[in-house]
């Protein structure tokens, strides 16, 4: 049976893992390879590395970081942040990534999704969507999940007015997975946005990774059941040791969710 995945996200700036609240106030929290290695041993199902600055200068540092992380782990590695072209993606995959995550560049030029899928296969293309709930819509629109803006550039510009519609377009253009972040919940530990996640899961036939707001094991259980997510991603609660990956997976398995419970390995 296909297991639900628990994914650790490493937000990386200049070779260091950082974490902010609601995409702002970044603080350094550790070394990417050391953190990835610890998560792999604890049984993490996947690692995501996001370059949160994604400036031209940070590109070289990012490739070095990917190489270091990829050498450490034997689980899938997804890398995103500032991927603007097929060439960018090729360099990241050559450095040891299995999947590419695109966000702002895909919003500016959705044909990028198709070009990446043609080159690397759709299973290597993750479209990251940063969604923020709007307060201006009627209740029925909110129930249908149609009240979420899509933002780009780390949450500074509204690019689309409907996260569900954008997820469907991403699927049609060749996305293999959706990494869905609630900007309202990111870093708050108030729980994942299950309404948003369930709305996107109902609208696409792709695996959906829920992100933003996971603070307790109950939050993960909720988004993987009522939220219908295939995977749940978190960062700071793992980095700070507030939740242990192995204990979380055991908790979810005890709640009847299909989980992979083997202990992991790293180098």
């Amino acid at each position, binding site marked *: 049976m296909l297991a639900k995945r628990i994914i650790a996200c490493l937000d990386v700036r200049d070779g260091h893992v950082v974490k902010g609240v609601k995409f702002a106030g970044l603080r350094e929290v550790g070394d990417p390879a050391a953190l990835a290695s610890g998560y792999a041993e604890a049984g993490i199902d996947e690692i995501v590395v996001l370059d949160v600055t994604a400036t031209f200068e940070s590109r070289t540092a990012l490739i070095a970081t990917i190489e270091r992380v990829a050498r450490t782990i034997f*689980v899938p590695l997804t890398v995103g942040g500032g991927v603007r072209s097929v060439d960018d993606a090729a360099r990241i995959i050559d450095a040891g990534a299995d999947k590419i995550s695109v966000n702002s560049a895909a919003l500016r030029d959705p044909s990028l999704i198709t070009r990446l899928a043609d*080159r690397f296969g759709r299973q290597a293309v993750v479209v990251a969507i940063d969604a923020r709930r709007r307060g201006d819509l009627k209740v029925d629109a909110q129930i249908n999940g149609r009240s979420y803006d899509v933002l780009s550039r780390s949450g500074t510009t509204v690019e689309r007015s409907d996260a569900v519609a954008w997820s469907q377009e991403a699927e049609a253009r060749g996305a293999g997975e959706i990494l869905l972040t609630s900007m309202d919940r990111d870093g708050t530990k108030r729980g994942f946005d299950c309404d948003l996640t369930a709305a996107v899961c109902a609208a696409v036939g792709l695996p959906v990774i829920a992100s933003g707001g996971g603070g307790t094991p109950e939050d993960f259980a909720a988004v993987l059941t009522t939220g219908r997510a295939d995977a749940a991603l978190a960062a700071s609660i793992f980095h700070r040791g507030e939740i242990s990956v192995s204990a979380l997976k055991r908790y979810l398995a005890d709640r009847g969710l299909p989980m992979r419970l083997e202990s992991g390995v790293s180098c």
Partner: protein
Amino acid sequence: MNVAIVDYGAGNVASVKRAVEVLGATAWLAHMPEELVSADLTIVPGVGHFQLPADRLNDGWRQAIRAHLKRRRPLLGICLGMQWLFDASDEAPDSAGLGLIAGRCSRLPGHVKVPHVGWNTLEDRPAGSRLLAGLSPAASMYFCHTYAAPLGPDVVATTSHGYRFAAALERGLVFGVQFHPEKSGTAGLKVLANVLAAVRTESNDAR
């Protein structure tokens, strides 16, 4: 032990190389068919579209792989590399696979989430499989694919996602896994170690 990993531009081959090296073998990325001559094991990895190996692994490669098998050297196909061992795939209906295993790969059904991404279990494991020896019945492997290989007499594990497909196969010197052993933690490394053990057995028998 020398391991050639066929690099035809299909995804993250560095991880396959590193996993094999961690297990004590010497591995290199092969860009020319001639490079298989000195290989004790050839691995055809790959993710992506069936058209890719069908186009890039031309007659020169096909002859080199068949010659490798004639020298009694094992072959391992991973993910797309395993599908390419079959006759054909619906993903690229006009292109031929290597044809070592009979059958045609087809798309996973529409009523489940596709691609099939994540960790899944192995079922229908016959006793005596070299590939999966010593693996816990509960072992999960990491899958990432849209098309899948059919069931048949060489299949030593199945996995279900919409329908049941071939997760692992072995036929003499030919091994194939739909999952990514290099991305499947301890269990995946065990599968790769089993392949290396089969290579050693083969070369001892030849002596």
